[in-house]
């Protein structure tokens, strides 16, 4: 029956079209790898800063004479060394991730800024913004040990949410971040290590796997 093949192809076309039209699939694995490398570099600088006793209670950068956190005032945060490292890391990771995804979508002939990208960004932003506000509040109230767990947990939730609007596999990266985040709540002194494992190592592993799976052939 010659029709059979055509019907099968029809079904495949339908499936492909539903996928392509509703998910942002040009996210490149290399974006994950580059973001992971940025995170590791950022974590290294942060570690240096912490090891240099930059925030030791003695030098008064963390608490004033009365023992009140200096970051209770939001403006003090902006010029803080760790905050700058975090911001630089985020910007570098974001720009590099964008570049690799841009290259990939150009190659595949897909628009980078369509309704799928918009939907993905919107749905990632919800947990990220809530998390960002929560973390600023953690810093202001002096609960600095909870920053790393909070970053990992909110980012993990954002990824699980994102998986509905992009590659399905992002869900597993999200689970990984969530798991690390939850565990790190009990190991506050290793916060930066967990942070580096989640944002660095997991990103690199995930990105490399995705690249291997979808882009190797290109």
């Amino acid at each position, binding site marked *: *029956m010659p029709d059979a093949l055509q019907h099968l192809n029809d*079904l495949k076309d339908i*499936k492909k*079209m*539903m996928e392509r*039209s509703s998910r942002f699939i040009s996210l490149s694995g290399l974006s994950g790898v580059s973001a992971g490398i940025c995170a590791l570099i950022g974590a290294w600088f942060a570690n240096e800063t912490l090891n240099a006793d930059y925030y030791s209670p003695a030098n008064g950068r963390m608490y004033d004479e009365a023992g009140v956190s200096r970051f209770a005032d939001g403006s003090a945060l902006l010029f803080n060394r760790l905050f700058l490292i975090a911001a630089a890391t985020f910007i570098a990771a974001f720009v590099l991730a964008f570049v690799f995804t841009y290259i990939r979508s150009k190659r595949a002939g897909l628009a980078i800024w369509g*309704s799928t990208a918009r939907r993905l960004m919107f749905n990632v932003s919800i947990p990220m913004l809530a998390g960002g506000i929560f973390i600023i509040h953690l810093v202001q109230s002096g609960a600095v040990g909870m920053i790393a767990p909070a970053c990992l947990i909110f980012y993990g939730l954002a990824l699980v949410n994102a998986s509905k609007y992009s590659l399905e596999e992002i869900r597993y990266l999200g689970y990984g971040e969530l798991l690390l985040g939850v565990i790190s709540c009990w190991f506050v002194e290793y916060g930066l290590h967990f942070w580096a494992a989640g944002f660095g190592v997991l990103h690199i592993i995930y990105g490399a796997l995705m690249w291997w799976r979808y882009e190797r052939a290109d």
Partner: protein
Amino acid sequence: MKNPIEHLNKTFDSRIRLGIMSALMVNAEVNFNELKELIQVTDGNLASHLKTLEENDYVKVHKGFIGRKTNTTYTITKDGEKAFKTHLDALEKMIRALD
């Protein structure tokens, strides 16, 4: 066995119409340019297939503006959804029958 071909919808014979319907099934609305990019056809070709679907009351056209540029979006109708699902079921049955 009942003949499953009778449930195959002639309107969805074309790959382009199939593509349009698939995209509209999973998206609340899709505009003309997005459809063009997804299916990779010329303006005229896409427009004529959309017209056919519109005449069958399977899709609905919404004309609007973004700034001064026209923005034509399409949504699927209840009839369209039903017809497409029936077509999909028929395709599935045909393939099952061959196994």
